[in-house]
C-alpha cells in the first residue's frame, strides 16, 4: 500500500484506469437495463397524455422561438458594441450531453462518473453544468468515462461573485457539506453587503469556469475570524443527487 501511495500521480492514474475497466461490462449492463426500462415506461404512456404534452411543447416552442429572435437581435447589438469598443468577441458555448453512470463510493469525496471519456474528446478541467447551474469540473479521465469533481468537493473550488453586489469570493466545501451535499461555503471580504437570496454566479477568474454560470443562492452568512471576512452558506442550484444527465462545455 505504501508503494502504491508513493507512486507518482500519473502512474496511479493509469492503474486506476486499468482497474476501473474491470467494471466497464457492469456499467454497460446497467446502462442497457436503464435504457430498456426507460423505453418500456415510455411505451406505457397513454396516447392522450402524449398529445397533451405535444400541444404544450408546441406552445412553449413558439414562445421560445420569439424569445430567441429577440435575444439574437440583442446579441447582434452586443457584438457590434463590443467591436466598437475593441472587446473580444464572445462565442456561443459548445456543449455535449453526457449521462451520469456512477457516484463516489466514499463518503468524503463528492464526485460523479459520466460516460464521456478521452476518446470522445474529454479533457481535464472541462466545466460540467446543467440548465439549472454549475455541477463541477472534470477531474480524472478514462477512455470511455470521466470523473467529475462536484462543486463542494475539496478538489473543486470556484471563483464566483454575488450577482446583486458584484463582490468576488471563492466557493468551497463547508463543514456542513459532509452532512448535506446541497450546501457550499462562499468566502467574501468583510465589507460585503449580503442579503439572503442573493445569487452567486461564476466570475470567470481562475480560467476553469466561464463567467455567468449560476452556482446557487445565499442561505445565510456570518462574520468569521474576528470580522476579517464573511462566510456565506450557499444553497446549490443543482442537486447532484438527482442528476441523470449533464452537459460538458467543450473548448
Amino acid at each position, binding site marked *: *500500500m505504501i*508503494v*502504491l*501511495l508513493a*507512486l507518482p500521480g500519473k502512474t*496511479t492514474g493509469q*492503474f*486506476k484506469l486499468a*482497474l*476501473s475497466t*474491470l*467494471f466497464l461490462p*457492469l*456499467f454497460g449492463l*446497467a446502462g442497457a437495463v436503464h435504457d430498456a426500462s426507460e423505453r418500456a415506461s415510455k411505451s406505457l404512456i397513454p396516447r392522450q397524455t402524449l398529445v397533451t404534452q405535444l400541444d404544450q411543447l408546441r406552445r412553449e416552442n413558439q414562445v421560445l422561438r420569439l424569445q430567441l429572435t429577440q435575444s439574437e437581435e440583442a446579441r447582434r447589438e452586443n457584438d457590434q458594441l463590443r467591436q466598437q469598443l475593441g472587446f473580444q468577441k464572445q462565442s456561443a458555448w459548445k456543449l455535449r450531453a453526457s449521462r451520469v*453512470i*456512477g*457516484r*463516489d*463510493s*466514499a*463518503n*468524503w*469525496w*463528492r*464526485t460523479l*462518473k459520466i460516460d464521456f471519456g478521452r476518446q470522445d474528446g474529454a479533457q481535464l478541467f472541462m466545466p460540467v453544468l446543467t440548465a439549472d447551474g454549475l455541477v463541477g469540473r472534470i*477531474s*480524472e479521465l478514462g477512455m470511455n468515462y470521466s*470523473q467529475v*469533481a462536484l462543486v*463542494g*468537493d*475539496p*478538489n473543486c473550488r470556484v471563483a464566483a461573485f454575488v450577482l446583486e453586489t458584484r463582490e468576488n469570493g471563492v466557493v468551497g*466545501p*463547508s*463543514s*456542513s*457539506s*459532509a*452532512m*448535506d451535499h446541497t450546501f457550499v461555503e462562499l468566502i467574501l471580504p468583510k465589507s460585503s453587503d449580503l442579503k439572503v437570496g442573493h445569487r452567486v454566479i461564476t466570475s470567470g477568474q481562475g480560467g476553469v469556469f466561464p463567467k455567468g454560470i449560476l452556482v446557487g443562492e445565499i442561505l445565510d452568512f456570518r462574520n468569521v475570524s474576528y470580522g476579517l471576512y464573511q462566510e456565506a452558506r450557499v444553497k446549490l442550484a443543482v442537486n447532484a*443527487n438527482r442528476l441523470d444527465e449533464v452537459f460538458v462545455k467543450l473548448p
Partner: protein
Amino acid sequence: MNWLNLTVILITGWLIVFCQSALPVLSQLVGAQIDLLPALMVYASLACGVPGVLFLACVGGLGFDALSANPLGVSVASLFVVGMVIHWRRELILREERYAQHVLGAMAGATAPLITLFTLFCAGESPLVGWGTLWQFAVMTGSGAIITPIFFHLFAWFDRLLNHPVLPETSFRADREIKRGRQ
C-alpha cells in the same frame, strides 16, 4: 480454505463495489454511503483465513479506490487491518452466534472508515470531514451490524449448494459386529 468459497466471496466483493457506485438509491435515502466491504471482510477472515483476507482486501480495496476519488491503495490497508485483527482472535470468536456477528460487523463497519480517514490525512489529502461525518460513521456501523449476519447466512447457503454435504461418521465397525445364530 475452500477456493470455490473464496472465489464467490471475491466476486461478491467486486459486485458490491460496483453497486455502491452505480446504485446509490439507499445511500441517498439515509444521507450517507453504505459500505458493505467491511462486513464481507468479517466473513472472509473467519471462513477463508489469511489468503481470503489478503485477496478480498486487494480486490475490494483496489476496486473501491478505482471508482472513488480515494488515492489508490488507501482502502486496501483498512480492510486488511480489520480482516487480520479478526483472524488473529478467531479462536475466541463465537462465529455461529448471531449476536457475535452483529457486534463484529458493527466494529468492522466503524473501524474500516476510521483507518481510511487516518491514512488519507497521513497521505496529505483533505477529505470532506465535518459534523456530518459522525452520522456517516453511525450509518456505516449500523449497516455493518445488519449486513454481517446476512452474509453469514448467504454464504452458508452457498456452501450447502455448491459443496458436497459432510457425512456424519458412523460408529459401525465390521470387526465388532455381533453375529447371532449358529454358524
